[in-house]
């Protein structure tokens, strides 16, 4: 069985501050991990992915995520956010199939 838990439903943060969006997963098989972003009234697009190799992966728009196998986590980070980063962020796990987390709404304030 697989599951994905995004620990924060909403994260408000001031512009230029750092942010971390947390994601934990469980699976009985090896998995691939993804973060997707959904801007208001748009479809989902891939931010970054972890398939194998280096546990720190970099994505678009200055985001990065670190795979921690022992803690079964894949937290998303950005050192300095912009107003334009306001969006819904989904963590996803691909084992037998892809399962999406409930989403974290990042709200960047001026």
């Amino acid at each position: 069985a697989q599951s994905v838990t995004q620990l924060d439903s909403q994260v408000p943060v001031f512009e230029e501050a750092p942010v971390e969006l947390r994601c934990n997963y469980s699976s009985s098989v090896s998995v691939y991990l993804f973060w997707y972003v959904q801007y208001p009234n748009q479809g989902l697009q891939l931010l970054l992915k972890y398939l194998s190799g280096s546990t720190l992966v970099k994505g678009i728009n200055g985001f990065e995520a670190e795979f921690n196998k022992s803690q079964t986590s894949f937290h998303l980070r950005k050192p300095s956010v912009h107003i334009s980063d306001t969006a819904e962020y989904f963590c996803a796990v691909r084992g037998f199939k892809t399962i999406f987390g409930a989403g974290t709404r990042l709200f960047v304030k001026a």
Partner: protein
Amino acid sequence: SAVISQKPSRDICQRGTSLTIQCQVDSQVTMMFWYRQQPGQSLTLIATANQGSEATYESGFVIDKFPISRPNLTFSTLTVSNMSPEDSSIYLCSVEADTYEQYFGPGTRLTVT
């Protein structure tokens, strides 16, 4: 990557009617997926559509309510049948790349009155 288009982008339908949503991909793909996303919520997989075989439905979704066609490797349709207000949602189609990431269409926003 893949570019996916969906039609219609939005619709308002009356209770008891049906709506067919089209999904077109710019390249040939084996599997296409249909998701439902209710306002402020995550994605729920409705079914997986493989070309040349019956769609595989997830628990809670049935073919009579959500019939799917997959006539070729670039196109699929999802019909929402006998609609009720509870079917109001965003419907998304997606495809999976060789490295397992998914590419999504822009979605169809359905409102049932």
